[in-house]
C-alpha cells in the first residue's frame, strides 16, 4: 500500500510539474478533423461483432495555459459479419423438436452512430508528446438483422425476419497519449472502454404446431423476445488529427 502511495505520489508530482509549464501551443480556439480506427481488446463473440472500429470527427477546442479542452462531433462504426447461429441453443416450444439439417437462422449485427467526445489534452513540457483523457457519449446504436426458417421437418415450419435496434447513450471513457508531428498534424493512441447495449432477437421454434397430416406454417409469435445485454468493451484506438 505504501508502495502504491509512493508511486501514486510520484505520478501526481509529474502531473503537477507538467501542469505548471504549459505546452507551446497558441492560446485560443482551434479546429481539427480526425480519423480514427480501433481494435477491440476482447472478442465479444456473443454479439458477432468485428474487433475493428472506424471513426471520424470534427473537433473544436480551446487552448488554455492549462491545456486544450476539446469537443468533438463524430461518427463511429463497428461492423459485424453474417453468421448462421447455433441452432442447438435455440429454445423450442414444449413438445417440439428442431431439425438443424433443415433449418437456418442467420444474423448480422453492427453498432455505431453519432458521437460526442469531450476531452482534455496537455502537452508534456518541452516535448511533442501529450497525454489526454475524456469521455465519449453515443455511437451506440446496435442493429441486428435476422432472418430464419426453422422446422422439425414434419409438423411446423417457422419463418421470421426483421431488424432489431437498441439505442443507448452510454459513457465511454478514454485515456491516451498523443504526438504532434507538426503544427497541423498529430497522432494519438487511446484506450477506450466502448459502451453499448446489444439486442439479440430470440425466436422460439415450433410455436405454432399442427399435426403430421396438416402441418401449419408459422411465423412470429408472442413467445419471441429481444434479449438486451449491456456491454463495455475495451478498445485500442489509433487516431490521426489534421488541424484547420
Amino acid at each position, binding site marked *: 500500500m505504501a508502495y502504491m502511495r509512493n508511486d501514486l505520489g510520484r505520478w501526481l508530482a509529474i502531473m503537477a510539474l507538467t501542469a505548471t509549464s504549459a505546452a507551446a501551443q497558441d492560446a485560443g480556439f482551434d479546429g481539427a478533423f480526425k480519423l480514427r480506427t480501433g481494435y477491440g481488446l476482447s472478442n465479444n463473440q456473443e454479439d458477432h461483432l468485428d474487433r475493428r472500429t472506424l471513426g471520424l470527427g470534427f473537433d473544436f477546442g480551446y487552448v488554455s495555459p492549462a491545456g486544450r479542452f476539446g469537443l468533438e462531433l463524430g461518427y463511429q462504426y463497428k461492423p459485424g459479419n453474417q453468421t448462421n447461429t447455433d441452432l442447438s441453443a435455440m429454445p423450442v416450444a414444449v413438445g417440439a423438436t428442431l431439425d438443424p439439417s433443415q433449418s437456418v437462422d442467420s444474423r448480422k449485427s453492427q453498432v455505431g452512430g453519432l458521437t460526442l467526445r469531450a476531452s482534455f489534452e496537455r502537452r508534456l513540457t518541452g516535448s511533442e508528446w501529450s497525454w489526454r483523457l475524456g469521455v465519449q457519449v453515443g455511437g451506440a446504436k446496435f442493429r441486428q438483422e435476422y432472418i430464419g426458417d426453422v422446422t422439425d421437418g414434419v409438423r411446423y415450419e417457422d419463418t421470421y425476419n426483421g431488424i432489431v435496434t437498441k439505442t443507448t447513450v452510454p459513457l465511454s471513457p478514454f485515456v491516451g497519449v498523443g504526438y504532434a508531428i507538426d503544427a497541423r498534424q498529430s497522432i494519438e493512441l487511446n484506450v477506450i472502454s466502448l459502451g453499448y447495449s446489444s439486442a439479440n432477437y430470440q425466436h422460439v421454434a415450433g410455436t405454432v404446431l399442427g399435426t403430421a397430416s396438416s402441418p401449419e406454417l408459422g411465423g412470429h409469435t408472442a413467445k419471441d423476445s429481444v434479449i438486451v445485454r449491456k456491454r463495455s468493451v475495451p478498445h485500442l484506438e489509433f487516431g490521426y488529427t*489534421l488541424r484547420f
Partner: protein
Amino acid sequence: MRMRSAMRLSSLGLTLAAGCALVGQTTTGALAGQVKDSSGKPIPGAKVILSSPALFTPRTVLSDANGEWRAPLLPVGNYKVQVFKDEFVGSEAHDVRVGIGTAVRQDLVLKPISKAGMVVEVVAEGAEADKASTKTSMNFSAEVLDTLSGLDRGFEGAADLSAGVAGTSGGGYSVRGGATQNTLYRINGTDIKDDLQGAQVGTWVIEDNIADVQVVLSPLNARNGRALGGQVNVVTKSGGNDFEGSIRAHLSRPTWNSRNPYTKDTPHQISDNLSRTFDVTASGPIVKDRIWFSIGTILTPSATSSNEIGAAYPLARGPMRTGDPQIDAAVANGVPSGYAFASFLTDAKPYTQGYSSNYFEAKVTGALNANHSVDLSYVGSGNKITNVDPGVGVIRVEALGTQEEKRSAWGLNYRGILGEATFLGGRVNRYRSQAIFPTGDPKFSSNPVNLWLDDIAPNDHYWYSVGLPFGMGTTPRPDKRNNTSGNLNLKLFRDLPGGQHEIDFGAEYYQADRTTQSQIGADNRAFRVGGAYYNAASRDWLFPAIIWPYYNQLGQSSSGNTGLAPTMFQYFGQDGITKNTTSSLYANDSLTINNHWGMMVGLRFDAINVIDTTGKTLAKASDLSPRFQLRWDVKGDSHHVFTLTAARFQGDFTSGFTAAFITEATSKEVSYGFSGIPGQPDPYSDPAHAVRWLTYAQLIDPRNYTASNTYLSNYGLGPTTAYGFSDNSKSYILDPHLKSPYLDEATLTYRASFASGNYMRFTYVSRAWKKDWAFSSDYTPSQLVTISDPSHSGLADKLASTVHVFNSDDLIRRYQALEVEIFQRITSALTLNGTYTYGRLTGNSNGGDNPYSTFRDNSIPGYYGNRTFLIQNLGKTNEDIAPTGPLNSDQTHHVRLNFSLERPLDKGRISYSALVRYDSGNNWSAAYAAPLGENAGGPMPNISNAPPAPATYTQYYGGRGQYTYNDQYQVDVKVSFRIPLGFKTLQLIGDLQINNVFNQMEQGTYSTATASLPYGANHLFLNTTSSGTFGGANPKEANYWIAGRSVGASLGMRF
C-alpha cells in the same frame, strides 16, 4: 539586372489534389493567377510565361489591370510559370501540374529590385486549385498513378480511389448515387461507353502512356450533358521535342496468389501459366516544335485453355415420344442403317479454346501556328477467341466457332487562341465497336435447329431443349455499337458589370448507332425437331419426323411447341440501325465578383431523339437544365472556400433504354407445323405412320411447312400449317411525351487549403432523380392490345399484354452523402491522400444499376409490375411490392487511404505505397417470388383469349434493402521504381504489387437463395433443404469471396 529563380515548389502532389474545378473540358486544363507585389497590390502588365514539355512553344500572357492572368486550353502536363516586370525581381514556380479539366491557380509575388542592386530571391506561393471552380473532380497524373496501389492505373483504378464513388455487387461504379449505366468514360475526348450495356468494355489504355485521369463527380458547367452519372476521362501523352519510350512486361501467375475456397475447389479450371503482356510506347518529334507523335501497343501472347463440352446439359435418352406405341415403335425400329441416336452424354468432350488480342494507340499533335493546335488520336483493340461456346446450348464441338471483337476510338481536337481573351475549342470524335459471333457448324448454320428431347423416365413426357447444336441461332451480321460526337466551344474572358466573367458558348452533338442483331440465321427462320441421329461414317445427321396434324391429334401439345413433328418458326423483319441523338446548346458564365465572392450560372438546352430501324422517330424531347454556383472565399486568399451549388442534370435516350422497344427482326413470329416431304402419304394409311427421316435440307425447307399435302383437309386442317403467332412489335406503348429523366443536385463544400499543396475538402451532397422511366406491365384490360397473324394465314386475332413506357413521378431514387477528401504531406517524403464517403442511396427502383444488362428495366418486378392488379384486386400495398429503402448500389462507407513514400534515386526514384480499402457491403432485400394463389395462371375475367394472369409477384418482407452483405477490407502495397542506368536517359522501371497483403478472405456476398414454396403458402422460405446454402458461401461461386492475396509485377526499360 540579374534575376534569380524563385525557390522551386513542386506541385506534383496536386495531381491528386486539384480535385476542385473544371472548365468543362475533357482533354485540357487551365492555369490562372494574380501577380502582386509584397504589399498585396496587383501588378498590371506583368509578363507571364508558361512553358512545358507539353507545349510546342511557351505561351505568354499579360496580367490585366487587376494583376490577373489566365491561360485556358492548356495540354495536360507540368508547367513552369515565370513572371517578369521591369523594376521587379522575376519569380517563377516549377512543376505546376495541369490535369484534365483542372483549373489551377498560381499566384506570384514580385519584389522590387533593391536600390543597392542586390538580387532578391523570391519564393512563390504554391499553386492551388482555382476557387472559380465549376465541377468537383479528382485528377491523377501519370506520375502519381505509377506509385498508387489499387486496381489498375486506368479507368477503374482512378474511379475506385475517388470520393463519392461506390462499387456495386453487380459490377461497375456508381458515382454520387448515379446508376452505374450512367457513368461516362472518355479517352482523349471520345466517349467509349458502350451505350447499350452502359459500361466501359474493352481495353483502352496503355498505363505507361496515360498523361492524366480525371474522375468527375458532378459536371456542373453547362458544357456537360448526358450527365445523370459521373465521368471518368483519360488523356494519353502527346509526345514532345525529345524522343522517349518504354517497354514494360507485366507478369502474373495463379500460383503467386493465395486461394479462396472457390479457387481451392476448382483447381483444374485454373491454368498456372505465367501471364505476361508487354506494353511498348514511343513518342517524340516528327518536326521539332511543330508536330509530335506518341504511339503504343500492348503485345499479348496468344493463349489456349482446355475446356469441356456437354457437361452442363442433362442427359437425353431418346427422341421425343408421342405416347402412341405404334409411332414410337416405328421410330425406335426404323432407324436407318448406320445411324444412331445422339444422346449428347455428359461425359464431357474436351476441346481447346484459343485467345489472342491486339492493341494499338497513336496520337499526332501539331501546331498550326503559335496560337492554334490540333491533335488526332486513335485507339484500337481487337480480341479473337476460337472455339467459343456463346452459352446458347452448344453441345457439339463442330458447332463451336470463332468470336471476334474490334473497337476503336478516333478523336480530332482543336485548340485556338483567337485573341488575348478569346479562345476556341472543338472536337470531333468517333467510337466504333463491332463483335462477330460464331454461327455454328458450317454444314448446318444457314438455319438453326433446336433439339427438344425426352427425359429418362419411360412414361414421362418432360421435354427440354438441349440447345442449338447445329446452328447458333444468331445472325452472321456484326453487332455494331458506335457513336459519333462533336463539340464547339467559344470561351471569352471579359470584364463586365459584376466582375470578371469567363463565358462559354457552345454546341454539342452526340449520336449513338446500334446495329440490331436479332435476325435468326440466313432467312430469319428457326426449327425445332424431336431427335437427331448421327452416322459416324458419313458424319451426317437424320431427324425423325411425323407430320404436324398427327401430333395435334395425339394431343401432345396444344401449342405445338413439342413433339416429334418439327416446327418452323418464321420471323418477320430485318435487322437495321437505330439512332439515339442528343443535340445541345449551352451558355455558361463564371463570374469572379471580388476576392471573396464568385458565382456561376449556366443553362443547357438538349434535344434528344430516338430513330427506329425503320427510320421512324419513336421518341423526341427537349429540356433545359440550369446550373448555379456561389463561392465564398472567407479571407480572400483561397485558403478557406465555401461553395454552394444547385443544378439540374439531364440524361438522354440511351441505346440500353431504347433497346426494349425498337423494332427487332424477330418481333413478329409465326409457328408452322411440318406438313411432310413430297410424296409423303396420309399417315393413317401408312403402316409406318408416316415417320420419315429427314435430312437437314429437308428439315429446313420451308416448302415442307406449307400444307401442300392435300390430305390435311381430311382432318379439318389447312390450308395452312400455321398454328400460332406472336407480335411483340405492339408490346411497348410509349408515352407520346416521353422524356429523359433528370437529376436535381445541391452541394455544400468547404475546402481548406494549406501550404505545400495540402488540403481538406468536405462536401455534403444531396441528389434526387426525377421522372425516371417506368415500364408498366399490368394484368388489366387497359394494358391489352389486339394482335393479328403476321402471315395472314387466317389465324384468329388474340390479345397480348403490353408494357407502357412513361416518365414516372413515383419512382424514387435519392442520394445523400458526406464526402471527405484529404491530401497531406506527413513528412517531406511521406504523403497521405485519402477519401471517405458516408452515403445513403434510397428509393423504390433499382433501374440502371446492372452495368452488363442490355435492358434498362425500371420496374419489373417492382413498382409497376402488375401494380393495379396486385393493389386493387389483391389488396397488396407498396410495402409488399415496392417498398422504399436502401437500393442495391447503396454503400454506406467507402474509405480509401493511400500512404506514399518516395525516395529519390539520382534522377530516378523508388516509391512505396500502401492503400487501405474499406467498403460497406451492398444491400439486399428479403424478397421472394410469392405465388398468387388461386389467381395464378387463370385468364383475365370476362375477356376471352386474354393472356394468363401472372403466377407470381415479388413480395418484400420487412422492407427494401434492410439486409447488408459483409463489409470488405484489405490493404494493398506497391513498390515502384525508376533507376537510372547511367547511359543517357535509360532507366530501369518496374513495380511489385501485392493486393490484399494480409490475405483477408472476406466473404463479400453469401447465398440468399430461397427454396421453392408449397402452393398457396405466402411466407419467406429460405433454402433449408439438406443442402441448404442460405447465409453460406458457395465454394463453387467465385463472387462470394473477396479475392485473396494476389501478386503482380512489371519490369521494363524507359528512355
